[in-house]
């Protein structure tokens, strides 16, 4: 990630520049007028006996990109994996608090995680295409969910939305593993949106990609957010500034006995977080004095 490590001063000015460019697009309506997708209250996540995240309360809104930024180990990934019950796979994982998704608490025991994940898709840090053909990568989820009508049109639509169609339309039967890293990640995005989820979670989707592939994916977010809501974890502040409408800053808190956990420090419109943060810790982080 060397291209992202810049001098603190230039980093902050780049961010401000990115924010200003970004702000030309559209002003955010007041938060009360936005439709909530997630309403998270007092979320605490624990691995074994170690809390990874304490008392997070925030909202995510429909058709917006919500970014989660913060230093390594602040619980960003844990947080986003709570939103589609991905942490269920970790045996020692427990969580408290509520995560209301359109009003329904998806953290509750009686909620079927499979149904949750059907509505809330996910793109991971490392591209993880199935070792199948390009076509089957997108089609597998459709088949599993019984969306078999117009299969090839659905596949084409998803690949087009993920800006990959033109590059792969002549070799849909080729293995997905023959694609480049950036193409694989866009394939994973196509796979996620093919099943028409409501929300797409992205856990550092561009952290293993070169700047051009990164740009392609950020462009996608802009285009796709009219149809989907996004929550994206990133440790790249410029990226958050470029793509996000709302930004949450997480940081690491330390207890008296040296224990560490992640905490939500500040959550606001991206412009506010990067230009006029209300918490000193946020300011230190976004200006590059910390992290």
């Amino acid at each position: 990630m060397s291209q992202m490590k810049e001098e603190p001063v230039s980093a902050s000015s780049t961010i401000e520049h990115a924010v200003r460019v970004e702000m030309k697009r559209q002003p955010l309506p007041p938060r009360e007028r936005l439709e909530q997708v997630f309403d998270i209250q007092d979320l605490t996540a624990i691995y074994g006996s170690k809390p990874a995240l304490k008392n997070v309360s925030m909202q995510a809104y429909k058709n917006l990109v919500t970014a989660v930024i913060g230093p390594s180990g602040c619980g960003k990934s844990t947080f986003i994996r709570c939103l589609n019950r991905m942490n269920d796979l970790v045996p020692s994982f427990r969580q408290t608090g509520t995560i209301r998704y359109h009003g329904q608490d998806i953290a509750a025991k009686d909620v079927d995680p499979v149904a949750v994940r059907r509505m809330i898709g996910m793109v991971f840090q490392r591209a993880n295409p199935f070792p199948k053909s390009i076509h089957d990568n997108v089609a597998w989820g459709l088949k599993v969910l019984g969306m078999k009508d117009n299969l090839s049109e659905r596949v084409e639509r998803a690949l087009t939305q993920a800006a990959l169609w033109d590059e792969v339309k002549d070799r849909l039967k080729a293995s997905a593993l023959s694609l480049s890293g950036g193409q694989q990640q866009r394939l994973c995005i196509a796979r996620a949106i093919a099943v028409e989820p409501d929300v797409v979670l992205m856990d550092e989707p561009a952290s293993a990609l070169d700047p051009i592939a990164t740009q392609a994916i950020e462009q996608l977010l802009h285009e796709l957010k009219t149809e989907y809501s996004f929550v994206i974890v990133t440790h790249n502040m410029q990226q958050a500034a470029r793509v996000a409408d709302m930004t949450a800053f997480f940081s690491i808190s330390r207890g008296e006995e040296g224990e560490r956990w992640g905490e939500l420090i500040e959550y606001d419109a991206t412009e506010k977080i990067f230009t006029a943060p209300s918490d000193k810790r946020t300011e230190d982080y976004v200006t590059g004095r910390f992290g």
Partner: protein
Amino acid sequence: MRTGDLSVLQRPNDRLRRRRVANRGMELLAWLAAAVAVFFLGVVVWSVAQRGASQLSFDFLTKPQQASGGFGPLNVKQGLANAFAGSFVIVGLATAMALPFGILIAIYVNEFASRLVRSAVGLTLDVLNGVPAIVIGFFVFGLIVVAHGQSAYAGAFALAVIMLPLVARSTIEVLALVPDSLREAALAVGAPRWRTTLGIVLPQTIGGVLTGATLAVARVAGETAPLLFTSSLVATGTHWNPSQALQTVPVAIFELSDSADPADHARAWAAALVLILFILFASLGARWLATRSRRKIARAAG
């Protein structure tokens, strides 16, 4: 890093020399260990081939054994076709029993069970794997043979008990090699666990499962003790019906080697050679299947 004094590259000092000697020594020991293993395998194969090859013929493979005790017509060509047929039936049945069970056990243990259950089942499989074959033979004797008499079914059941931990263990190992990121990818599109397991995880392991199954087949193809209890009192002639006791290659070797007739000894060696060749080709076939399926997965036709 400073690169000031590079002369050290040209002038090996004592410590470097000592390291090099130690390195060579270890390399040599490792090479010797490998050579010893290959040597003994070579000796076994060579001695079996030397004693048995002369008996190998088309008749040996296609004609059945004659009745023992010298009542058979003299100078009639005889072979071990009955034993080959019986081994084929019994090992085939055993594989058909053990393979699905073993794979299901492995899927349960690796994909669904809690950590506690996982280690408990793992321990059970190891213990089962450690039970001497003769004990398993005796167990099946008490379970089936006492009530229903000897049969190929009973023999196959005994061999399946031996195969089960081998198949399950090797499948657990290959399942554990499938990265969790693939499972997460499948679950994240809203697929249930069983679809994820059957559609994404299991196809990744076909090569490993086949290799494990072949090793298990190779192991039980040579098992004698459990078959003495369960499928050794056989009628003359070549039979395929598994509800009666069938002659098998290892039991035939055991009986022939006990015979007074030197020709029978030679036949035993030849049968051993056939067994070894079968295991060799089965292993090669498994490897071929494994690479083929892996390439197929990589090319992702399915």
